[in-house]
């Protein structure tokens, strides 16, 4: 049961992220345009924020996060 609940949590993470990409793509396709460089920068910054958080949690668990995050 613990694994199933964890799978739901991870799936929620994936869906919340995927829905944002899907909305961007759908909006661009509906407008007949492409994803802009600003939107790509936003997504790249989201990665940096997530990686920074993971590094902090790795350090909190006594591990050594990889260099160069962010």
């Amino acid at each position, binding site marked *: 049961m613990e694994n199933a609940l*964890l799978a739901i949590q991870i799936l929620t993470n994936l869906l919340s992220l995927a829905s944002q*990409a899907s909305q961007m793509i759908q909006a*661009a396709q509906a407008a007949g345009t492409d994803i802009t460089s600003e939107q790509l920068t936003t997504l790249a910054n989201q*990665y940096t924020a*997530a990686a920074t958080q993971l590094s902090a949690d790795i350090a909190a668990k*006594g591990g050594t*996060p990889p260099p160069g995050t962010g």
Partner: protein
Amino acid sequence: MGLSWKVVLAPFIGAAFGWLASKGLSLDPNQQAAVITLLAGAVTALGHWWHTTSINATIASLTTAKTSAPPSPTQKGFARVDQMSALACVAALIAAGCSSLGLATATTFNEKLAVGYESDTAIVTSTDTLLKAGKITAQVASNIEAQCNNLKAALDIANTVEMTNATDGGNQLAAALTALNALSSYLATLQ
């Protein structure tokens, strides 16, 4: 529910995605990750259901034969709740997975690049979830994050290259997305 069956299952899931792609049904990394998570969760939940069903059958046989004292109410109640929760998890996972499969399909370079960035972020976020849940060690999480950082750099490079050479940029993006797929499959085996 150990790790071994997931490791054995992962190549077959990858092969299934390849077969679907050969038939013209190509799933992006987010969709593949959602399907893998859906399958892993469903199998795990069904495993719990089978396990608790076995417990109920055992309880029933003991009660019928009257060879021992009846099971404690706590044990019987826990088994029922566990079984119903497992089925609820399956329903939730199926509903969520179907929603994910309705995502828009990325066609242009920028759209695929957006999917790549989000897939990379999703892997990092899921790794963080697994780390906090104690499913993976800090060392494993650090290793995955290092690979994600490399793939983020690969996506950045593909974006830069595409500005001057669309073909090379597209090829580099495709390679990065393939690596993201592999990393997603690996992550699914750790749940």
